């Protein structure tokens, strides 16, 4: 099996994505359960959205790894842009705003 780097950097990066996505999925489910009494259907909705996003992100991370790794092996090029990082940061910041709403919003 061909690989780009003996330090297995692309593989380690994929594992980092998987760890992050797993944490997001678990956080969404547990968060929905813990906040259900106060948050009601909104908590459930946020939890479900988080789980769906985690599932989609998981598949996207694997696809991105396969595409990137192929280019790295063939051309030693890594052409990923910054859009995915902006999106993930924005999603995380939105989640923190929802957490603020839970803490100080209407009961």
């Amino acid at each position, binding site marked *: 099996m061909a690989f780009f780097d003996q330090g297995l950097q692309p593989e380690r990066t994929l594992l980092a994505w998987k760890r992050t996505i797993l944490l997001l999925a678990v956080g969404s489910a547990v968060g929905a359960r813990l906040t259900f009494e106060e948050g009601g259907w909104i908590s459930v909705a946020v939890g479900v959205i988080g789980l769906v996003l985690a599932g989609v992100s998981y598949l996207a991370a694997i696809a991105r790894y396969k595409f990137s790794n192929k280019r790295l092996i063939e051309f030693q090029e890594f052409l*990923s842009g910054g859009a995915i990082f902006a999106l993930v940061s924005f999603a995380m910041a939105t989640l923190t705003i929802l957490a603020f709403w839970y*803490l*100080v919003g209407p009961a």
Partner: protein
Amino acid sequence: MKRQVELSRRRFPKSLYSKGSEPDPRFSLANERTFLSWIRTSLALTATGVALEALEVPIEPNFRLAASLLFVALATLSAVQAWLGWLLTEKAIRNQEPLRGPMSGAALTSGILLGLMIIVLGFVWTL
């Protein structure tokens, strides 16, 4: 050169990719893993803030709310640090400039320590 211009048009943000040169992919991958570490930090801080209130941890309620809000604020800071850190590091790598340290490292560390002190004070208050 023409290929680099063409590639920079398709990647976001253009202001980053239109300057400098393509770095060793291993540096970009390391930068990506650092970004994900900040996101996980943000997730953990959000979870801590929400859990303190949701589980009604038995400390004085005002102290508990203050600690929760602080941890969630730090989570927001971590999410912003994740993006800005990735952007500035990628820029430095592309332009072969010295790398910066995390801008919010001191604030984050101090904030977490302060949050822990608030929790301890809240616990002592109930005794």
